[in-house]
């Protein structure tokens, strides 16, 4: 089974100056433009778009980065899309490279004292939400129907027990759309940031009526061979371990579904399950299935784990790492003590921190300070954020080193088309005689010439890129080669 995954992260921006409160949205947009222009026009971090990519992406709105990923302004957020990765460590490094890119840009602009990028998915004031989207490449033959999607929904609804990023409070904004039975009780803390905003099991749009499985069919690759599974319900993880386990387990479950070897179970009410699990800090996590039986979320995950163990053990070291870590995680979660998984799970790590603070400082959960600490956990500035010291001290496990994350700013991941894209970007950046280019996820074009299509995301296209620029050099002179 091949692994190919990418993550898109929409960042929030915290402006510390209290005087800016009333005009914060305008100030945010100004700052986004400053950061983008600094990175693309001064620092040379990538190639700014010269063409209109979509109705809401005019020229100059963003661009592709040296690592083959992408940075742009989208719906009032700076969004970083990591390049397609073929290994879990690559994805983790590329994801964290986005944090580093933005944090360093603020430092270089002298703004890090004034603002921070926040890698979370909610604010506590306006009930806004913004995403961390996962993309998985699967074969076109993937059963994108009831047989395939029922078990996927079950897995996704329950994986938050280790993948959730945790949040203070709750949002009942979507109860206007979809009333839930019973009341809307006060929630001090819950395990997922996005759970309250999911109102559909399946839907194609991304900004309203968010769903557990997004049904948009936009493969950004050869549509006859590939489908891109696009997921909106996940949280932005600070934890490298949680991110690695989240994407690793999800890919294994997609693989089980491809092979027809997934547990065949379905939920009575998937949307209510997502919310109910998130609000249940007892860690009992009882779920109702469509046949009326009840079962624990940990048991459901164990069923998926056992099927994956049987199907994929020994296939690769990545796969074995996922299986070992998944098994250990479920065993620890079954003991119903958040502290046991706080070194690997964001919601548990944050809960332990906030509980410590609450006891030590005598601050109750209803105090807005707790919301502020919730944000601080996701602050990507190492000087002010709460998460990075835990990782630095070895309290929270990490998968990749700081030097590897820095390298991921510069080099694309090996063995996917992002490698070829990264190479092409470098060649264009290094050649001041190239003024006209189009970079897309699925291809490259220079000077309105031949288009180099990259329709197979599992190929590096390194050789093709070299040949492409060699031809360019022969046709237009050595300076065009990008060498």
């Amino acid at each position, binding site marked *: 089974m091949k692994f190919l995954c990418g993550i898109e992260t*929409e960042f929030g921006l*915290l402006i*510390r100056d*209290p005087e*800016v*409160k009333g005009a*914060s*949205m305008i100030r945010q947009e100004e700052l986004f433009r400053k950061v983008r222009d600094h990175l693309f026009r001064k620092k040379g971090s990538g190639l700014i778009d010269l063409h209109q990519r979509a109705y809401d992406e005019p020229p100059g709105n963003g661009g592709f980065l040296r690592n083959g990923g992408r940075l742009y302004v*989208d*719906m*009032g957020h700076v*969004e970083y899309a990591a390049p397609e990765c*073929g*290994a*879990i*460590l690559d994805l983790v490094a590329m994801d964290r490279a986005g944090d580093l890119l933005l944090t360093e840009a603020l430092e270089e602009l002298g703004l890090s004292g004034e603002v921070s990028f926040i890698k979370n998915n909610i*604010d*506590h*004031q*306006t009930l*806004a*939400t*913004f*995403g961390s*989207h996962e993309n998985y490449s699967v074969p076109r033959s993937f059963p994108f129907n009831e047989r395939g999607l029922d078990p996927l929904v079950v897995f996704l609804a329950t994986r938050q027990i280790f993948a959730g990023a945790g949040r203070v409070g709750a949002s009942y904004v979507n109860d206007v759309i979809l009333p839930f039975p019973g009341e809307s009780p006060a929630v001090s803390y819950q395990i997922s940031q996005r759970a309250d905003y999911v109102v559909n099991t399946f839907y194609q749009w991304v*900004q309203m009526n968010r769903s557990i499985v997004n049904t948009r069919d936009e493969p950004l690759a050869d549509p006859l061979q590939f489908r891109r599974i696009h997921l909106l319900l996940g949280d932005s993880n600070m934890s490298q371990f949680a991110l690695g386990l989240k994407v690793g387990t999800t890919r294994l479950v997609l693989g089980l579904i491809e092979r027809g070897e997934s547990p065949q179970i379905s939920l009575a009410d998937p949307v209510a399950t997502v919310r109910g699990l998130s609000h249940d800090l007892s860690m009992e996590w009882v779920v109702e299935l469509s046949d009326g039986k009840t079962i624990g979320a940990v048991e459901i995950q164990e069923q998926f784990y056992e099927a994956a163990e049987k199907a994929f053990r020994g296939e*690769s070291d990545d796969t*074995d*790492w996922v299986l070992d*870590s998944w098994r250990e995680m479920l065993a620890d979660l079954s003991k119903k003590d958040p502290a046991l998984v706080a070194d690997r799970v964001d919601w548990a790590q944050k809960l332990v921190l906030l509980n*410590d603070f609450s006891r*030590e*400082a005598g601050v109750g959960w209803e105090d*807005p*300070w707790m919301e*502020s*600490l*919730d*944000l*601080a956990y996701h602050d990507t500035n190492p000087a002010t954020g*709460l998460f990075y010291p835990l990782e*630095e*001290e*070895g*309290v929270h*496990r*990490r*998968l*990749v*080193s700081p*030097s*590897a994350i820095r*390298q*991921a700013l510069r*080099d694309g991941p*090996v*063995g996917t088309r992002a*490698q070829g894209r990264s190479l092409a970007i470098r060649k264009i950046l290094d050649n001041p005689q190239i003024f006209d280019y189009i970079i897309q996820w699925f291809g490259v074009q220079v000077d309105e010439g031949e288009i180099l299509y990259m329709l197979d995301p*599992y*190929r590096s296209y390194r050789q093709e890129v070299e040949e492409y620029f060699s031809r360019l050099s022969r046709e237009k002179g050595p300076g065009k080669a990008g060498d």
Partner: protein
Amino acid sequence: MTGANRTAGAGVSEGRIHGALGLEDQDRVPLPTRKGGGPDAPAPKNLDPKPIRDRMIDRMKKVDPKQSERYRQRTGE
């Protein structure tokens, strides 16, 4: 760039980076496993959890209690 040159933690030297960009598509250095003291279980630099806990409490006390009131975002995707 490969997985192995990004490993962190006990027994993994950051200086040992093996020809990342020279690898062919099929070459991939494997993700170390926890059995081998792999990257997901780094030895804590500080073996006594108390000091880090205290430092985290201090850091949390420095967080502006009102900052969440100023954090107002547009809804995204």
